[in-house]
């Protein structure tokens, strides 16, 4: 079945929250509708479910990878070219520790960035129904669902009191 998206714009936060209630009552699942806002609101403002994420695993994995990589580079290069400098041992832990530390942090940061983008479900190629008014302060409620259910979705959105008309994400 083809997926279609529709969007309703609201001026009041409570209207948008009512729209979510209407959609839940109409049988739409959590993955089918979303709130779009131009600024972050406190979690739960619209009665939406707490977004679950596993972001904290990414820096940990990144740090381990970075640490291992840096350990291999530092130990490997020291043993491959054993240069005695200043009477220090070939495998000098303080010196290696510095680069291993930087490697861990770099790994953690790189994977954290990837994690943030991934957990944000970005990049999003299919924009669907969207309005530029959202970044002006309007609150959008968008429903992405099967073609057969778009009428029910539009009904639920209109019942909460949208501003203007329903915005459809496809060309008629």
């Amino acid at each position, binding site marked *: 079945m083809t997926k279609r998206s529709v969007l309703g714009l609201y*001026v009041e*936060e409570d209207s948008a*929250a009512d729209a979510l209630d209407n959609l839940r009552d109409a049988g739409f699942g959590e993955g089918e509708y979303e709130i779009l806002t131009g600024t972050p609101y*406190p979690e739960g*403002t619209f*009665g939406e479910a707490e977004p679950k994420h596993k972001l*904290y695993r990414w820096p940990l994995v990144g740090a381990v990878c970075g640490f291992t990589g840096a350990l291999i580079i530092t130990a490997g290069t020291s043993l491959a070219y054993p240069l005695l400098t200043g009477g220090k041992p070939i495998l000098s832990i*303080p010196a290696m520790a510095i680069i291993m530390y930087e490697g861990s942090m770099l790994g953690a940061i790189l994977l954290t960035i990837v994690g943030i983008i991934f957990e944000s479900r970005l990049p999003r190629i299919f924009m669907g129904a969207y309005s*530029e008014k959202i970044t*002006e302060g309007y609150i959008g409620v968008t429903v992405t669902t099967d073609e057969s259910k778009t009428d029910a979705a539009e009904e639920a959105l209109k019942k909460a009191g949208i501003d203007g008309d329903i915005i459809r994400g496809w060309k008629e």
Partner: protein
Amino acid sequence: MSTTNNIDKQDNYPFEAIEEYVDNENSLESRIEISKKSLSIHTATSKRFRQFAYLTGAMLILGIVGFFMKLFAGFDDKQAWGYYVAVFAFLMTTTSAAPMVAIAPRIANAHWRRPISRAAEIWTLAGCVNLILYIPLIWLLPSLENGRRSLWFYEQQEGVPAYAPHIWVTLAIIALVILGVALTWVSCLPDFALLRDHATGWRQRWGKTLSLGWLGTTAQWNWQYHRMGIIGAFYFMMLVFVHFFISVEFLMVHVPGWIDSLYPITHAHNALQGGVATVMLTMFFLRQFGGYKEHIGIEQFWALGKLLLALSLLWFWFWFCSFQLLWYGKKPTEVSVLELLVTGPYRELFISVFLLVFIIPWFTMIWNPIRRSIWGPTIIAVSVLIGTFLDRIRLYVGAWDVASFKSKLINPDTDMLGMELAEVPNNIVMPGMADIFLTVGFIGGSIFIYLLATRIIPAVNIWEKKEFLLYKAEIQFHRVKVIVLGKPR
């Protein structure tokens, strides 16, 4: 690029920039409730409290015995005083720095400090124990005319008295104690007035004397606010100076070749870490045994847990900065110092310290679920305190061992200024009976003083909790409940 688009063309932009008002939780009823609840907990003396008091009181007696044993043994054998100085330094590192948990968040207007600021401040009274412990050290410390290493540049400058370090360190410690007591007293004035007005018996009498006629006028509140700020700032500066003096005069100058410009700062940082750990443990005991479960909550443990995490990482950084430089330079004098303190007889102690003060706190507290709990930060605080104590032993016992060493040399005059540690001791100095008595006694004694103080001084800051009512609201924001926090100044 053009600015003209659909949004700009719309005439009826429906939003307005409005600032909404919220009502705070302040009311006569809520203030009375806090006073009543806090007073009822404060005036109750539980069986558990008595048990702790008897135990720590017995420990204090043991400490006094050890103290006199040490005094009678004399000051000639420097090595024998290593543990004494270590205990003194440990108490300065923990109890004297605990008030920083009250001072710093107060300056930053962090509301989470309110239930625990008094618990932190009361530790300043244990500073009196530190002062008593310090007095024999005035005799122990060699004067400058013996030609010892110092930062006073005695022979290079005119007019420097031979007892300059003794004078200045004594003045600094006395000033720290006075500032600490003053800070606690000024902070307690409104609560003493509460005791005067609502308590009975001896508490009512003591409240009347100590409250100094506090009425709660606007002028008095403003005066108190500014005094707490100034005394707090001076307390912090004096704390840094005291740690500077202790780490230099009682530690570094006794080890020839130990030239570590960072160490005074490291010592002050260790104090901050020790202070936070001390307050963490105090909070736990007040919650579990003191009846303050409703007052001291997870917010406080979480906030201090974050601080402890950062301070543990900083511990490593400060240590590594010093270690790395001495290791890298490979100067013979510096290699000897590293051998004394890290790789030689105190190696096992050092490894324990490293684990307890850095590895365990860092790798556990990095997990939010552990930070956001009651037991997690508490256990880590215990680890930090034990580690800090072992660290003081490692440094001070080692340094005074070397100090005694040098004083046995053939030409003490020329060698006392030297920067070369000719011989690193082979073994750790083991504690004697007096040392054990002292350690147990004065740590227990500080806790005993604290317990006694909490009988008159409410362990939770009642007026600050009432003040919080002015700046706190819990409101319904559409479909979610949120807390609104005001900014006083």
